[in-house]
């Protein structure tokens, strides 16, 4: 281990040599791998090759799908798609990188595919592609039916067979691949191609389209899940019936189609009615039309006949009138004669009623006599009646009734006078008694009763009752009334009026003289009496 330049037993390689060695090593060691990963940044270059990356949680690898391989793949690489790819590893010496060349690609599991489809369905639905308002009803009886399907196989046979059975029509078949590379593009081209046909052109424009395919795996039916196919179906101006796969398979084109048939045969049934049924229906309608209008006429003519029968017979109408006319004519002819006869009769009758004057006068005389006789009788009867009435009235006119009435009056007056006198006497006596009684009551209340108890009434000379001592002046002549009579006394001296009353001055009863408090009231009481 000496020397400035180390000795190498390793051969010196160029970068290209190493890269080439690496490439060989890698390609030999990984000539065929199955790799699972998520697609990231897929890009289709102008060359038609597709560049993408596959990644998982910890690593990433570049990947390439050559143009030729791309066309064979059943699915387009999309961002985020979980796929299992088969291919070989290689290196790219120019960039010091390694990559996988994808030869086949499938979705990682059915769940992932369904998830993808569901997401796509939701996106397209949000755009309104599946709106019920977009659906149009195919015509009841189309002239031309456009069928987009594989030209070989059971599907087209089933459709043609059923159309032929029900109602033979003109059928245009646009042959397409129904699976694998390019299938979706062909279907899109066919739908657009049919829609592009002009009305009345060399190739007749169909009234209805059927897009059909037999049953298959989910991957087999993928072309009918392609967005481009779904959009083409939704945009078709010709009503479109989809019949893809079995009844249980639902592809996205079914959502966009105007009608979805469970099977290709079902699509044919939806497209055309049953001719025999219609023929029968038309036959019946024709029969009903004839019958109805026939009945209408029969009915009207019967009614007309009935009405005509109701019209009276003209001959008979005339016969009646003729008869009446004849009768009148006859009567007209005989009328003058009968009129004359009638008049003659009237004259005769009138003449018979005429009287001679003498006869008339006799009758008038008789009448007059009868009247004068009856007049006399009436007069006599009147006088007699008046006399009778008078005698009746005068008989009723008598004085004794009046006399009786006078007597009765007189008696009544006498009785009343007696009763008056008696009542007067009794009344006088009653009044005297009452006066007496009152006198006694009066007496019991008078001062005399007081005098009896020892009181004395003092009067002055003019007879005025004195009730106060000051009213007695000295020397005044006083009259004292006792119960049994009066005595005159003279007052002593001329005592001043303020002097207390002398016992004799007031001449009170000895027992009561000292009873000062009661004096005045007693006197007042007496005065009031």
């Amino acid at each position, binding site marked *: 281990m000496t020397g400035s330049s180390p000795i190498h037993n390793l051969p010196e390689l160029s970068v290209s040599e190493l890269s080439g060695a690496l490439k060989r090593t890698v390609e030999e060691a990984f000539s065929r791998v199955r790799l699972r990963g998520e697609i990231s940044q897929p890009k289709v270059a102008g060359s038609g090759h597709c560049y993408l990356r596959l990644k998982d949680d910890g690593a990433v690898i570049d990947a390439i799908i050559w143009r030729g391989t791309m066309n064979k793949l059943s699915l387009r690489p999309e961002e985020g798609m979980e796929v299992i790819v088969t291919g070989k590893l290689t290196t790219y010496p120019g960039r010091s990188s390694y990559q996988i060349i994808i030869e086949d690609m499938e979705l990682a599991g059915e769940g992932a595919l369904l998830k993808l489809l569901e997401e796509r369905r939701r996106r397209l639905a949000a755009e309104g592609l599946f709106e019920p308002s977009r659906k149009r009803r195919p*015509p009841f009886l189309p002239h031309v039916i456009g069928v987009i399907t594989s030209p070989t196989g059971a599907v087209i046979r089933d459709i043609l067979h059923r159309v032929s059975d029900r109602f033979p029509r003109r059928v*245009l*078949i646009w042959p397409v691949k129904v699976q694998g590379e390019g299938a979706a593009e062909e279907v899109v081209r066919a739908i657009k191609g049919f829609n592009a*046909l002009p009305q009345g052109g060399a190739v007749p424009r169909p009234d209805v389209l059927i897009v059909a395919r037999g049953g298959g795996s989910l991957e087999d039916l993928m072309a009918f899940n392609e967005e481009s196919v779904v959009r083409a179906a939704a945009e078709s101006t010709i009503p479109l019936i989809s019949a893809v796969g079995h009844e249980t398979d639902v592809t996205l084109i079914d959502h966009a189609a105007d009608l979805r048939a469970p099977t290709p045969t079902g699509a044919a049934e939806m497209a055309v009615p049953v001719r025999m049924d219609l023929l029968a229906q038309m036959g019946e309608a024709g029969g*009903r*039309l004839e019958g*109805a209008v026939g009945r209408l006429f029969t009915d009207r003519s019967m009614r007309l006949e009935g009405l005509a029968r109701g019209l009276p017979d003209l001959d008979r109408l005339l016969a009646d009138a003729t008869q009446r006319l004849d009768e009148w004519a006859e009567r007209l002819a005989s009328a003058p004669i009968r009129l004359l006869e009638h008049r003659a009769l009237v004259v005769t009758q009138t003449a018979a009623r005429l009287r001679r004057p003498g006869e008339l006068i006799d009758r008038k005389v008789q009448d007059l006599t009868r009247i004068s006789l009856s007049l006399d009788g009436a007069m006599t009867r009147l006088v007699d009646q008046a006399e009778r009435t008078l005698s009746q009235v005068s008989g009723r006119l008598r004085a004794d009734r009046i006399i009786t009435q006078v007597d009765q009056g007189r008696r009544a007056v006498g009785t009343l006078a007696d009763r008056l006198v008696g009542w007067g006497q009794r009344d006088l006596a009653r009044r005297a008694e009452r006066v007496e009684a009152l006198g006694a009551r009066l007496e019991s209340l008078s001062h005399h009763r007081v005098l009896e108890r020892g009181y004395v009434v003092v009067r002055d000379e003019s007879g005025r009752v004195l009730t106060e001592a000051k009213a007695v002046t000295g020397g005044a002549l006083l009259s004292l009334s006792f119960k049994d009579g009066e005595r005159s006394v003279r007052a002593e001296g001329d005592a001043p009026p303020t002097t207390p009353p002398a016992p004799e001055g007031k001449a009170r009863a000895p027992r009561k003289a000292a009873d000062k408090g009661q004096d005045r009231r007693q006197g007042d009481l007496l005065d009031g009496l």
Partner: protein
Amino acid sequence: MTESAKGPTGLPEDIAALSFEQAMGELDSIVRELEQGTVELDRAVGAYERGVALKRHCDVKLRDARMTVERISIGPDGAPSTSPLDGV
């Protein structure tokens, strides 16, 4: 009944233009109306004539039951053309 223009089929043009379904629907309503028996006789005649024409139109459409199957192919100029398809 008003004079309608006659088309090449001898049918009034307005009837010839009807689809089978429209013609059948109108025929049905005419039959119903006549069967009710309340139509005026003058109008009944017109309705009957129209009904007959409608039925003829429908019959023509029903008679036209030819099955032809053609295959579409696109020419080099991109224009579609048809050719009979046999053997299906």
